[in-house]
């Protein structure tokens, strides 16, 4: 998967309120945070993690860095992401919300051209229960298990994780692709990674209105010869058109991205769509009971 307990992580924006708080929680979870970066705060410490002025310095001191978790405010996040890319970091989890659209475009396209993975922006991050957490999700609702979650929402994916955990299925890995119109990863790419993950037996797709990530995933899925079963849930059935529902990405505009289109595409590709979050474990269990291996 994207990360495990050996992944060496830096936190950009570590001295901010959120950055500092979640650094503590990630450390408690066992995430291997090797350095923090905040320009001008070099030399200080946050929960025992040494802070550097630049990513270059941090790497110069601590050696290899595999991933960065970015809490830098929206105005400067783009610059922070580029800094990590230019310094060879291969996985960048961008928690920051509210990054301008054209900067997202630039940073996401650039990351692709350099084969760097961006998770987010506007994501709770990713967690591999029992291994590591690069994000802000409440880890106690994620019991290790067999279901991979890929989600455009934050708190809604915690709800899903909790439903799966209390049902006994548990979570193998959860990736928040992010709530913005342009994200580093889409469902297709995350699913590809989940296919290769031995712990993952089932996949839950948590979508929402707006964009066409769900439709494109449905199309991709129907063309696969080998697959793991997917159950979907789509938020926003009752949302009006042309109103932005909190997330910049959750807006039905120019006739694109309404609930019906997504559900139709998923169902036609053989993906059951749960009407309620609480149905998800049941749907998975019914699939499980039909599998004869």
């Amino acid at each position, binding site marked *: 998967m994207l990360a495990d307990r050996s992944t060496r992580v830096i936190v950009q924006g570590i001295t901010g309120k959120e950055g500092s708080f979640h650094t503590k929680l990630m450390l408690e979870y066992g995430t291997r945070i090797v350095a923090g970066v905040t320009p001008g705060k070099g030399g200080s410490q946050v929960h025992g993690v040494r802070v550097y002025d630049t990513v270059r310095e941090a790497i110069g001191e601590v050696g290899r860095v595999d991933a960065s978790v970015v809490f830098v405010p929206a105005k400067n996040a783009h610059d922070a992401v580029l800094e990590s890319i230019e310094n060879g970091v291969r996985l960048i989890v961008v928690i920051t919300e509210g990054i301008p*659209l054209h900067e997202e475009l630039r940073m996401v396209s650039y990351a*692709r051209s350099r084969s760097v993975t961006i998770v987010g922006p506007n994501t709770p991050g990713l967690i591999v229960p029992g291994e590591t957490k690069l994000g802000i999700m409440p880890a106690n609702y994620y019991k290790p298990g067999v279901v991979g979650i890929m*989600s455009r929402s934050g708190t809604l994916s915690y709800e899903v994780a909790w439903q799966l955990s209390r049902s006994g299925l548990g979570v193998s890995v959860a990736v928040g692709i992010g*709530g913005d119109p*342009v994200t580093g990863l889409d469902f297709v790419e995350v699913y590809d990674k989940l296919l290769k993950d031995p712990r993952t037996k089932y996949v839950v797709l948590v979508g929402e209105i707006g964009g066409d990530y769900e439709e494109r995933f449905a199309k991709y899925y129907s063309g696969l010869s080998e697959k793991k079963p997917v159950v979907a849930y789509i*938020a926003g059935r009752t949302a009006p058109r*042309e109103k*932005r529902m909190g997330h910049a990405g959750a807006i039905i505009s*120019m*006739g694109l991205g309404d609930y019906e289109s997504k559900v139709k595409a998923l169902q036609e590709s053989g993906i059951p769509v749960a009407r309620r979050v609480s149905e998800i474990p049941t749907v998975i269990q019914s699939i499980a009971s039909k599998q004869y291996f």
Partner: protein
Amino acid sequence: MRLLEYEAKQVFREYGIKTPEGVLCRSPVEVKEAVARLGESVIKAQVPVGGRGLAGGVRFTSDPEEAVRIASELFERGVRGYRVDAVLVEKKVCVNRELYLSVTVDRSAKSIVYLASRLGGVEIEELAKKKPEEVLKINLDPFIGYSPFVARTIASFIGLPPSAWGEFERIAVGLYRIMIDYDAELVEINPLVVDCGGSLVALDAKILVDDNSLYRHPALAGLKSRELTEEERSAREKGFTYVSLDGYIGVIGNGAGLTMATMDLIEYYGGKPANFLDVWSGGGASRDRVKEAVKLLLENPRVKVVLVNIFGGMTRCDEVAMGVRQALEEAPVKKPIVVRLMGTNQEEGARILREVGLDVYEDVDEAVRKAVELARG
């Protein structure tokens, strides 16, 4: 954020794109004078929303007296729920051909894209589904952006004669520059017409500015609020992400997805949500924010029951509970409140609320069913 047509057209003109001769009018008298001067005219209500034509917001006349009647009606009744503060009166253009041209963001390709068609005046996404061969889509490589060959390729596709290419290139590069300079999500001319003199004129103009970029455009940021209903405006002033809906169960959630899912669940169980209200603010839902949110909904006459759905993760449920309780104490109106609590100190939170007689649930389905039931009351 959507610019009004007349604002977008002003931007167009600054970027060298021709628009019809017209006058912005703020009263029926001004409209009358404008029509008297311009002759055959179109009167267009300036509202920050699409679908205005079908809703009667676009009208034709050459009679100044009729113009007064139309204008009075628009100013009085509004269009699609929006007040009309101004109408744009434009001289009717003699149209030879109608074309479509826009620049927007292709979310899938993660790049800026030009969309063009020789069939103007239609909704482009519909056209792209029905007659894909009539829509040319040119994705700009993010590295390169616009280069003049893009305009030539489009001009050749839509069948403009080479004599019009220079003018078309000015329009195409204008759209791109507006897209970048205004941090836009969409810049659209629909229809772009070839007038009877062979000139290219933007009959309509649409510019959507990315909300996340508004801090870089202070002049526009101030205009944002006009897209909102009164109800939304006062909620946003309190710092909530808020959308009015037409139901009667007030919804408070934390996180956009969870809040939408709560609305959907209300409908699933036979109720109707009155709003979307996300209390999320990065650090979790604080006591004061919850209090303000609950008070806001209690004071909303459309709301019969308030449903609070907090899946906090980090959020301290005792804090949330205190917020709800304080709202209950402070609000002059008494309405049923149903609370779903999940997160740190969940038990303590439930205790605080049960003390004052509220229904508290851990299971979201149960909470929603209860709220719907209370609303039926």
